[in-house]
């Protein structure tokens, strides 16, 4: 078995890169929110920089339990934001992006008729937005009462799944094809500002976690077998702040410099997030069963089969997701649909004037 050392390096680099990309996307989302609330007051690249600096400051607080307050503020903000959006679109005569006079049709589809490649991209994006299993090592490690893990997980996921489902279905029902891009702007006008205003702390909290965690991965790696890892020495602080600054800078640079960042993010979702949060977990289950080498029961066989099934499904999702995002990047390049590196253009959707 040479899986061990090599697999460990692959997983380490893969997980680090995945978090750095998600943090980069978070910084762009912060710039979108700042653009929306301020009517694009300054250059977007500067807003992203402001976001990166804020995130860097908060993420440098040393232990996860001391930054947990910001995740609470963030969750409340995001929930308020999507609930506001959901209610607002239901109260409007027509969605903001629809023609405001004359006949209109929101073209609701019970069954989609989009090309297969677009469906693959949508499914991959849904998987990406749920991806997070590797973080549960830290979640359990930080729990006051780890024995309540299963219950907490079920409550958390039930809230997440029902919010996703209800918000998506209601907003789609009222807007149809006239969703704004990004969706949080779909109610337009003042409500768009309100939605982004409430979402802002949540976007910051997400980027903070996705900067804090990979920086800690690096620090533990550098200071392993060193007395400086667990002690508050000068070296410890220097290494920690360097790791935070390095992570925040890389996230900022890739998000701003790569002209096809959004579609490259989808590649990361399919190629890194999906295997790290589905495939490896099923392998983990199957390896553990083999390692224990107990007499297989009927239930054991069924569970093994269930894990093998998710394993195969995840491989399929990785393949189709990568194919779809590669096609999207090719489309961007062919059409010249490229973002200007460190550009200033508004990324919060169109304005009433246009």
């Amino acid at each position, binding site marked *: 078995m040479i*899986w061990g050392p090599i697999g460990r390096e692959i997983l380490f680099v893969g997980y680090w890169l995945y978090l750095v990309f998600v943090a980069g996307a978070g910084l762009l989302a912060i710039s979108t929110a700042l653009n929306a609330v301020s009517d694009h007051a300054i250059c977007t690249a500067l807003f992203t920089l402001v976001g990166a600096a804020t995130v860097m400051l908060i993420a440098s607080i040393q232990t996860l339990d001391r930054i947990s307050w910001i995740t609470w503020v963030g969750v409340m903000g995001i929930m308020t934001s999507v609930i506001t959006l959901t209610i607002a679109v239901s109260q409007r005569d027509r969605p903001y992006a629809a023609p405001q006079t004359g006949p209109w049709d929101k073209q609701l589809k019970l069954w989609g008729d989009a090309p297969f490649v*677009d469906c693959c991209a949508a499914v991959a994006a849904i998987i990406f937005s749920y991806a997070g299993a590797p973080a549960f090592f830290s979640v*359990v490690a930080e729990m006051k009462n780890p024995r309540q*893990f299963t219950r907490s997980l079920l409550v958390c996921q039930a809230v997440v*799944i029902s919010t996703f489902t209800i918000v998506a279905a209601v907003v*789609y029902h009222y807007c149809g094809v006239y969703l704004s891009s990004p969706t949080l702007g779909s109610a337009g006008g003042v409500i768009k500002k309100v939605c982004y205003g409430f979402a802002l702390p949540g976007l910051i909290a997400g980027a903070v976690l996705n900067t804090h965690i990979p920086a800690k991965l690096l620090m533990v790696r550098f200071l392993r077998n060193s007395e400086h890892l667990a002690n508050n020495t000068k070296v410890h602080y220097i290494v920690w702040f360097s790791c935070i600054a390095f992570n925040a800078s890389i996230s900022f640079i890739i998000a701003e410099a790569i002209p096809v960042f959004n579609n490259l993010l989808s590649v990361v979702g399919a190629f890194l997030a999906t295997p790290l949060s589905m495939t490896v977990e099923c392998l983990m289950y199957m390896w553990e069963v083999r390692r224990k080498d107990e007499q297989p029961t009927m239930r054991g066989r069924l569970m093994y089969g269930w894990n093998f099934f998710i394993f195969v499904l995840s491989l399929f999702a990785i393949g189709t997701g990568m194919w779809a995002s590669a096609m999207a990047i090719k489309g961007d390049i062919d059409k010249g649909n490229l973002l200007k590196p460190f550009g200033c253009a508004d990324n919060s959707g169109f304005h009433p004037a246009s």
Partner: protein
Amino acid sequence: MASFLDVLGLIPGVLVIIVVGILTTYTDYIVGTFKLAHPEVYTLAEYVKRLESLHERHAHTTVLAS
């Protein structure tokens, strides 16, 4: 999320959102319960690294037992 429903259609879209949610809840559960049983493992990468030594030890005890 709503934009996915425009691509997939309301019925398949809602189904995918729920099914993927359940599948990832299960993989989260695998990680969480593993961590409960093995608090000394801190990351997925460490788990994979450890796997080797665990298998070696296992092979060793099997040889002894036979």
